[in-house]
């Protein structure tokens, strides 16, 4: 069973929040518990309200609540999604202004990533290497 202390969960939460910067046109990021980011492949957000923390606006994001959300997902992050590694993700939806914290998976194969996105009714996937959103 994985464990992280409160300080670590706050560090991860702060990193996730800091990966959104509208002035720098940064709209989110994906990290594992070691604060490592994927460098290749495609990120796909996974379905499920139970694993998703949602805010109406960026200004309402609460670092303590995000840290608690991180802590509650430590065990899940120790598993995989059908063999693929899992990440904690933050995402700012430019069309609505909403902010989401959710679980995402790094898929090496683009076609597979797109299939996953269809299954989980996502609007887009993220090309890590080229830093591009690919809409479905």
């Amino acid at each position, binding site marked *: 069973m994985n464990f992280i202390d409160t300080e670590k969960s706050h560090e991860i939460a702060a990193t996730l929040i800091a990966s959104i910067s509208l002035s720098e046109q940064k709209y989110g990021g994906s990290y594992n518990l070691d604060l490592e980011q994927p460098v290749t492949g495609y990120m796909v957000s*996974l379905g499920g309200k139970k694993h998703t923390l949602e805010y109406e606006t960026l200004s309402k994001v609460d670092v303590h609540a995000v840290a608690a959300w991180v802590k509650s997902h430590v065990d899940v992050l120790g598993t995989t999604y059908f063999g693929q590694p899992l990440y904690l993700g933050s995402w700012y939806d430019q069309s609505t202004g909403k902010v989401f914290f959710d*679980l995402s998976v790094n898929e090496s194969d683009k076609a597979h990533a797109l299939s996953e996105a269809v299954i989980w009714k996502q609007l887009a996937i993220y090309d890590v290497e080229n830093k591009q959103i690919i809409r479905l």
Partner: protein
Amino acid sequence: MKTKNTPIKQAFFNKMASEFDTHVRQSIPLYGAFISELQANIRKHFYEATILDVCGSTGLFGKTLFDNGFKGSYINVDGSPKMISLAKQISPQMKYPRLFNNLGGFMSSWTDESGQQINQIDTKVITFDIALELLGFQFFTKTREPEILELKASVEDTGVCIFCEKFSNKDTELWQRNENLKDDLWKSKYFTQDEIAKKKQNVLVDMGEYCYDIKEFEGLLQKHFKHVTGIYHAGNFAAYACSDIAVTELFESDISLIHNIYNSK
């Protein structure tokens, strides 16, 4: 080597994959009618739902849903390579983009009888609207509480778990009468007496030790869910819809089988 949650008779499931769905419907009284009603209720009340089917065999449940207009997503996890291979044939990804057949074990990894490694799938990573356990647990575990909790952890707070199993019964006379009724009034429509006897040796003897007492099972469901509704009951087979939201009206059924004699000959 048999370890916890390793399915029994793996070779049997692989061998009969192509005829499995028909076989189940011919072996279990009105199971086909129950599945049709369950699918109709899902299409009616959960038409865009995400569904997890643990031990979903050939994924026919999902295929039939999509063939009838379902707009959600269906993830089948089954531990039989042959079942999953067949599932991918009958529901090709191009035609069924939101149907995902996946080889894997529920709460267990093992090396199967052919030497193939079957990896555990952690179903809690995503949370589904509906999780199905249709004739699954009885083939790989003597326990039920950990499995029920795992399935519950795989659905949303407003999610629904459907359990359908063959049960044992402390009233062994009643259990045997139910078995005789099933053989005489249902299976005899599809199988000869010799075939019925052979099937008992092939599957049912081994399965017997994994069947769970029906009253104890109902007690576990009531312990872990706020709402539990019986949605199918045919002798030693029963199914329940369970949730922390009210589900009774969502799974209405016309199948009144408790004392039914299977549309007798």
